[in-house]
């Protein structure tokens, strides 16, 4: 399948900002929501996410294009673990005390970070190594920025400190450190990002925006809509008219979504 190659700048802006992996694509939420409760944790997680994403995406683009999709999925998992293993080994040998719970549970989970898998499937295996590298860098920048902002905000309002230094804030919100607090912070960050991208890059946003699509169902009187939340990230297929319920199953396969088979295997 041929497709026009986007420029490096476009890839970077789209990957990091307009299609921010966390805020707009809802991928790789777990480390942010569960573990980025302080700036230090967030920095560590950002480093791990960046390393895993860049390594896996470049590897996928260079070597995995010809391999069947289901095998690729398993390879991403192995590659992720291969990056995380030395990182934890290094941290373990550096620290004198036992690793914190965040490091013990949530750092290993970056091996199965969905942002990595999404970009490997949607971009890396369809593009050149160079573009895949740019895309991975963009994703890393986008994820890291969100991780660091969330980590800093949660540390300030949750513990009244920043990077371990105490601040004199009269009241702290314990809830900021809980997952629900982070979801709400993410909601507002996403709204700000949407506003910035619509203001700064209106032409890029217009042609490909994350949407909540409302699709008519067959029994229109009782129930008129079915919601489809997905990202039209580098969508190859043109925008289609709303589909009938009989085609409901086919939608899953035709959607440009990481978890659906499309492209090369559909052609066979």
């Amino acid at each position, binding site marked *: 399948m041929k497709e026009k190659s986007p420029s490096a700048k476009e890839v970077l802006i789209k990957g990091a900002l307009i299609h921010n992996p966390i805020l707009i694509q809802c991928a790789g939420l777990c480390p942010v929501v569960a573990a980025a409760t302080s700036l230090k944790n967030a920095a560590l997680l950002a480093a791990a996410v960046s390393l895993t994403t860049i390594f896996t995406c470049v590897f996928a683009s260079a070597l995995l294009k010809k391999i069947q999709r289901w095998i690729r999925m398993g390879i991403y998992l192995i590659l992720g673990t291969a990056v995380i293993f030395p990182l934890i080994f290094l941290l373990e040998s550096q620290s004198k005390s036992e690793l914190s719970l965040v490091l013990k549970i949530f750092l290993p*989970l970056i091996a199965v970070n969905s942002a990595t898998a999404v970009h490997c499937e949607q971009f890396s295996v369809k593009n050149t190594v160079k573009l895949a590298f740019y895309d991975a860098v963009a994703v890393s920048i986008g994820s890291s920025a969100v991780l660091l902002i969330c980590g800093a905000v949660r540390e300030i309002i949750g513990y009244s400190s920043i990077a371990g230094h105490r601040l004199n804030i009269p009241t702290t919100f314990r809830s900021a450190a809980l*997952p629900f607090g982070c979801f709400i912070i993410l*909601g507002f960050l996403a709204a700000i990002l949407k506003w910035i991208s619509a203001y700064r890059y209106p032409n890029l946003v217009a042609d490909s925006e994350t949407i*909540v699509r409302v699709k008519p169902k067959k029994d229109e009187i009782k129930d008129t809509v079915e919601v489809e939340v997905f990202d039209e990230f580098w969508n190859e297929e043109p925008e289609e008219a709303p589909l009938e319920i009989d085609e409901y199953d086919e939608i899953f396969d035709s959607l440009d979504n990481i978890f659906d088979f499309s492209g090369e295997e559909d052609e066979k």
Partner: protein
Amino acid sequence: MKIAYDLLLTALYAVFVQNMVMSFGLGSSEAIRASSKPGRFISLAAMISGFSVATSVICKLIDMFISSIGFSYAVRVAIYGGVLAGVYFVSAFFAIVLFKASKRTMGTLGISALNTLVLAVPFINNTASYSFADSIGSGIGSGIAFVLAAALINRGARRLAENKDIPAVFKGTPAMFIYVGILSLAFSGFADSTLFS
């Protein structure tokens, strides 16, 4: 009987009291992304539970076998990741060769395996020192918890889509995040503190 009781209790705990997705944010991105596919909920629940149970049981066995050897935590990370990859490859292979699984089923299998929730279960079992029955219970619970969360998010997304008065900047993911946030807040009424904070 005691084992069955432990299993059920841990499963219920993982679904309601500390819903793994809502209270810990584990697998939350997959839950939000999969929420738009209600037709797959049952197979997702079964596969996630299956992967979690298989992974946690094998990891538990390995833990028991090598617990006497004092090895680095990083090795444990590698083992757990490797076990999940192994379980995925074996089940995918059988699905294709024996059951001639459709592309859609293989896609669902992929979401289920490449999911922070599934890999988290053995780590949680290890950290919380769960027994064998507890490990199976938390594995089964994780699948149900995932689908409960996905179903709730699906309904929320639908409601948000029907709502024409949402301000333009909040349309789409921002409103969705806030919805999930308040849902997660509601789950915290069952248990105040989380295991990991």
